[in-house]
């Protein structure tokens, strides 16, 4: 089932590194991704595509690149 959601990653980031990591994973999973805040402590991305693939994207990004540390992840619905 198709879904669109905004994910918020909190942690300690090298912003360009994490953004590139997200771009690569989104492309691999055939997801549409549009980036919002890309900062050293907060990253926001809206992803659209199959919900299973969105779950995979979250799992992949929770590990992140070696120079970033993800401490928490929220989705838009959980923030409301």
């Amino acid at each position, binding site marked *: 089932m198709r879904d669109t959601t905004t994910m918020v990653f909190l942690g300690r980031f090298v912003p360009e590194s994490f953004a590139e990591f997200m771009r690569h994973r989104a*492309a*691999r*999973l*055939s997801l549409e991704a549009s980036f919002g805040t890309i900062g050293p402590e907060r990253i926001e991305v809206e992803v659209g595509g*199959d919900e*299973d*693939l969105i779950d*995979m994207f979250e799992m992949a990004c929770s590990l992140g690149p070696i120079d970033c540390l993800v401490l928490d992840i929220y989705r838009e619905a959980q923030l409301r």
Partner: protein
Amino acid sequence: MSFSAGWYAVAIAGGLEPGTSAGTRLFDKELVIWRDKDGASHAWEDRCPHRGMRLSFGFVRGNHIACLYHGWQFDEAGQCRYIPAHPKLDVPDTIKVARYPSVEAKGLIWVYSEMVAEAPVPAPEDGAATPVRSLYLERDPATVGFIIENGGAGPFEILSDSLFATNVEGAELLVALQPFTDDRTALHIVITSGDIAPAKIAVWAEELRAVLETVRPISSGDALLAERFAS
């Protein structure tokens, strides 16, 4: 001596049975070679796109290969077709394994050394051949090739940088060199003509291995002198 991009033998074809997979290396790049149930062989990057597990550790399921780690299955084209954790998922085309061009000819599996959709040079021609064995030498490919080309291991006809022919007791042999890693070399030997027991050639092959692992190549001007290490 250096090797260029091209076709290299990576295994004796008959040694890869339907439904099996094996790992090998070409210029230190890790490859999985596997044969599906219909008999077609495949040479891919030895890495599942999911978590990087070696696919050579996986299982062939019909005409798919399944990763040992999470069971992701890939079809003959490298496309992921099934993810056990998401059985209803229509897997996107972007989840696939990188492949190398490969063919079977003269009893060997040949792989083009670059990851391209189509090799820019023709694949080796097929022909009758009886497989003998593969040797894995503890010596770098350049030195092994240098010794063979310069007569340090007996008379060989040089067909290319990595393919040599010789005659042993009336039998014509092909010896295909596989640059395995920077310091290891594989040789794949087949009989192309002549009536001789492969076991006899296997004994010759062991002697060839001993020579190629111990001969010291010495360049003197344009000439090569090969001498054994003093024991």
